């Protein structure tokens, strides 16, 4: 806390909290936060995965050969739990197919291939050349618009959590909550897109936060930021002091410590409470949104723009112009490397990571594209980087030093989890709280034996999930089988009952007749009477016929 540069009482959140554990890795942020935000024009073709958020994939509303304009809806998710996807550039839909893009799941994803009209290779990306080249929503006056309209706009614009979680924002905003926390912690090394956005676009971010607060009916907005971003804090502070917005705003300056940007850790920092393990922040009357997300909300409402590009930090020692770029979704890593990297490096020594170095994902296929979750791209030559783990790094035995326990923000015992996941004791793992692990990687960062702990946890988590799926399946099969058995037994029983009843009835009938002579005589008499009556009837009917 002592490092925080400026503190005004009326703009500063007063509660200094802390969370257990955490690490202080070297930041490497100055590589990319020194230059102004730039724009990267779309390449010749964009490959848009149709599922870019948590939730189900939506309905594709374009077909191959369609001419589309920038901002046009490609994937409609109105009826599903996902988020809409729009065209990042004008062009022609060339192909809709399943493509393997090297995502973590390893599964191919349905993607739309667009050939762009005004791509960067043509050098005439002038959008104001007379014809309409961009679709925009009708502008809203957010001060007078009702919250439902704003919420609908967030949904239409396909906004998702841009911090990396890609949870559809409209679902998070559909409740009435007191407090909006804007997460600008950006605690992972290398990443600076939120930092730069606040430095340059603080007014828009503040407006976006105000719109979000109105949608939520919130009374307070807290901007949470780490104390290593003094310029961003100053810029935000200035904006808050001059802005005449309806919702009260405060800044919470947190000490720099990874993973302070994690939702649970952030709540512990700001409110000094721990979010119950089975609850969402909404249960405490608050919602957390990333800076980039509230900015996207601003653009959707004030500029009518759907979410088609995002600010991406492109950094690393192989980038000739490191910085933050607006990159349209669907742009391949290959294109970015071609545009921004030193070209004469050997590709084998280059490693590319999407996301940060602690929670990101290795890019094994350069065809992988920027999506709504890609906040950072690190292109490094790792040969001389002491902090980076290389493929040849072999790990040693765990010496139970419990450094991992010291840094775990979830207060788990990582070495015990490692022990149990090695021996595949899934029940014990669950008892040790494996599912409370947020996979922040702090444990593996400090492990002196360089054990890839998080890798083990992911494996254990997916194994447990698989086991549960199988369990559910077999439970279902078992209950189906049991039901079938029961049904057969019941039918048998029913048949038996029916037969029994019929037999009884027959028996009863015959018994009646045989046991009671009077009854028998009666029955005979009755039958005779019936025959007689029938005869009479017949003769009556025939008589008129004869007359005719």
């Amino acid at each position, binding site marked *: 806390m002592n490092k925080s540069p400026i503190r005004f009482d009326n703009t500063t959140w007063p509660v200094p909290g802390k969370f257990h554990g955490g690490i202080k890795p070297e930041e490497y942020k100055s590589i990319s936060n020194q230059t102004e935000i730039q724009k990267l024009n779309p390449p010749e073709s964009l490959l848009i995965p149709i599922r870019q958020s948590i939730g189900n994939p939506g309905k594709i509303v374009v077909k191959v050969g369609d001419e589309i304009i920038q901002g046009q809806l490609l994937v409609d998710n109105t009826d599903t739990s996902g988020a809409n996807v729009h065209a990042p550039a004008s062009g022609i839909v060339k192909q809709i197919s399943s493509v393997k893009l090297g995502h973590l799941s390893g599964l191919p994803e349905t993607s739309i291939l667009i050939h762009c009209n005004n791509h960067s290779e043509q050098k005439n990306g002038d959008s104001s050349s007379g014809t309409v080249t961009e679709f925009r929503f009708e502008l809203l006056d957010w001060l007078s618009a009702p919250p439902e309209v704003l919420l609908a706009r967030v949904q239409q614009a396909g906004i998702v959590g841009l911090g990396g979680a890609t949870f559809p924002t409209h679902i998070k905003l559909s409740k009435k909550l007191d407090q909006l926390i804007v997460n600008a912690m950006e605690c992972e090394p290398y990443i600076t897109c939120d930092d730069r956005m606040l430095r340059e676009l603080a007014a828009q971010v503040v407006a976006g936060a105000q719109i979000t607060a109105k949608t939520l009916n919130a009374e307070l907005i807290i901007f949470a930021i780490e104390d290593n971003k003094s310029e961003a804090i100053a810029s935000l502070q200035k904006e808050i002091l001059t802005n005449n917005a309806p919702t009260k705003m405060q800044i919470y300056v947190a000490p720099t410590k990874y993973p302070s940007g994690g939702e649970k850790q952030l709540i512990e920092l700001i409110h000094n409470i721990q979010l119950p393990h089975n609850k969402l922040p909404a249960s405490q009357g608050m919602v957390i949104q990333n800076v980039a997300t509230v900015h996207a909300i601003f653009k959707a409402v004030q500029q009518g723009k759907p979410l088609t590009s995002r600010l991406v930090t492109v950094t690393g020692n192989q980038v000739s112009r490191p910085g933050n770029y607006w990159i349209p979704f669907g742009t391949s890593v290959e294109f970015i490397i071609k545009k921004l990297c030193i070209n004469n490096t050997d590709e084998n020594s280059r490693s590319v990571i999407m996301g940060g170095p602690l929670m990101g994902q290795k890019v094994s296929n350069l065809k992988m594209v920027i999506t709504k979750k890609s906040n950072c791209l690190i292109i490094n030559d790792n040969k001389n980087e002491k902090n980076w783990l290389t493929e040849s790094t072999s790990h040693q035995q765990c*010496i139970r030093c419990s*450094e991992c326990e010291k840094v775990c923000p979830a207060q788990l015992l990582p070495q015990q989890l490692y022990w149990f996941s090695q021996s595949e004791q899934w029940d014990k793992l669950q008892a040790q709280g494996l599912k409370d692990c947020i996979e922040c990687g702090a444990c593996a960062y400090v492990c002196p034996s360089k054990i890839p702990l998080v890798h083990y946890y992911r494996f254990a988590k997916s194994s447990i999930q698989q086991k549960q799926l199988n369990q559910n399946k077999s439970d279902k099969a078992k209950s189906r089988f049991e039901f079938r058995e029961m049904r057969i037994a019941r039918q048998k029983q029913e048949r038996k009952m029916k037969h029994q009843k019929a037999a009884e009835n027959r028996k009863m009938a015959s018994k009646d007749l045989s046991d009671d002579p009077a009854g028998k005589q009666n029955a005979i008499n009755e039958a005779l009477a019936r025959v007689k009556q029938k005869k009479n009837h017949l003769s009556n009917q025939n008589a008129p016929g004869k007359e005719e």
Partner: protein
Amino acid sequence: MALSSPFFHQSLSTQQIMLITCLALIPGALAQSYFFGYGVLINLCLCITYAISAEALVLLLRKRKIKQVVSDNSALLTGVLLGLALPQTLPFWMSFIGVWFAIIIAKQLYGGLGLNPFNPAMTGYILLLISFPVEMTAWLPARTIASHFPDFTETLQLIFFEKTAEGMTIEYFRLITDGFTMATPLDYIKTEFTQSKMRSEILSNQYLTDNIYAWTVINSCYLLGGIFLLLRKIIRPHIPLSVLSSLFITSFILYQFDSEATNAPLFHLFSGATMLGVWFIATDPVTAATTPRGRIIYGLCIGFLVIIIRTYGGYPDAIAFSILLLNLAAPTLDHYTRPVIYGHQKEEQANE
């Protein structure tokens, strides 16, 4: 690059941790060899050689990468600790048995580094102590009070042939200037107590106080090394501080009870293997408890047991026994002292 995140790593490696721990033992080892002669250094060299050869042999049999595993320096550390714990002129074949037992039985048979439930060095030490009680308690008196202090050649002869060229055995060198044999202070005082002598009476022996002084200096040097480890964040304070405070409190209570028949708290802290054990052996992460609360209980129990055994037990020093006993309890301690996981507080309270 690693398979999955994190790709970033920064901390001391296991090799470095082991190596720095060995380096932190240097001041204590130097002090010990100053007071007890070349035997300490010869023992160190022997034990290190034995330890690494034993480790390499097992790795060869287990078809592991010898160089990679030996370079984790854990065998080195076991060798160093045993070398410092053994009497200076212990016959070479006894230290061989101790070290090979430590590395092969107590460590590698359990699966190697990280999987051994007992501290290898202490297991080896106790094997020797129980098997060869006479040799294992045959400590030389400090250089300052010895009547015949062995030189380098004599020490070598004692270690390899059990007598010098002149036919002198260890007993000859254990004599002090007044013609009596001097054991370690803990041993000596314990024997005197059993003969119902008063503490003040025992301590009036000038030779004893000189010997105590030597042990105090040695312990202080180990304390310095331990503080160095603490400052370098190689070890965490839970275990050493809880052992020391428990040692002090337990002995203080006993001392208050009968100050003439028990040792003073400070004497306990600075005699025998106390500081070596507290800072370098009890803190062995592999065999200690791992949770913060577990470590405190672990340390408190060790301190308590040390004083109880020293005061009422049959052995003068009890560091090795206490640590091994608590090694046994470490998994249970870990099980019952798990920290409360984030977001589970209310449940815990509700359960209580």
